[in-house]
């Protein structure tokens, strides 16, 4: 095999590795991978700048989305608690 062919094969291997890891990044960040796969993804994210930055993007996005949760006003929750208490006390609407 010529050096160029070997280099080409190496690049293709590296590329396919990133594609494979790229499919797992979101599940990894959601905590949905088994420990072995999670460790493999984690190692790659530390070693590969491009995939690491992709993971950073998703972390930022998830964190920002979690923060969009509006503070809940007390009144509706109080009414719902009262409704549940009424049910428990036998006051059941027909």
């Amino acid at each position, binding site marked *: 095999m010529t050096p160029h062919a070997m280099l080409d094969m190496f690049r293709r291997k590296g590329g396919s590795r990133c594609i494979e890891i790229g499919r797992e990044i979101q599940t990894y960040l959601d905590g949905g991978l088994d420990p072995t796969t999670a460790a493999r993804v984690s190692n790659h994210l530390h070693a590969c700048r491009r995939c690491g930055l992709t993971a950073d993007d998703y972390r930022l996005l998830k964190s920002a*989305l979690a923060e969009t*949760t509006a503070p809940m006003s007390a009144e509706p929750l109080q009414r719902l608690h009262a409704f549940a208490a009424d049910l428990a006390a036998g006051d059941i609407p027909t």
Partner: protein
Amino acid sequence: MADESQINPTNPTPPVTVGSFDAFVGPHLPMLLRVASSLCRNSHDAEDLVQDTLLRAFRGLGGFDGTYPRAWLLTIMRNANINRHRRQRPGLLHDAADLEGEADRRNPPASSAEDVVAAHTPAPWIADALQCLSPRHLRVVQLVDIAGLTYDEAAATLGIPAGTVMSRLHRARSRMRAHLAHHPDVRSEPR
């Protein structure tokens, strides 16, 4: 994602009696109201949907085995929501796919995205990203990333497989990431 201890079958909810119903559902009310808000047009409808869910849960207590209380309540909410739509548009809804289509029609992505961030906007650019999603993709983002449901809980709420929730969620995040790639508030550092 939700706390696993809340859905772990090895840590089942103690037997729920009629008299302890309010103590049982109390911790789940904020989650139920948040999910209902993502399914309904306004806060009044959302509160009505939670009340309907509570009433159905109370009547169905005898069939509850004590495991997965959140998924149980969310499945009840889903059925209550289907019935609600049936009452409003009788004869049009037959299954979960119909419900999804009806919900999409009622909650166009623009107004839903605005509603999501209207009351509390820590990152305004998120509103832009949510606007680029289809109603179905927006809904899974609302349920999982904003309301904090697990894939399984979102699946129970929407009546679709957990794998579909995951694929929609991943596609939605990819779309938002692509949308934000050139946003001035997000891309301040050179890549």
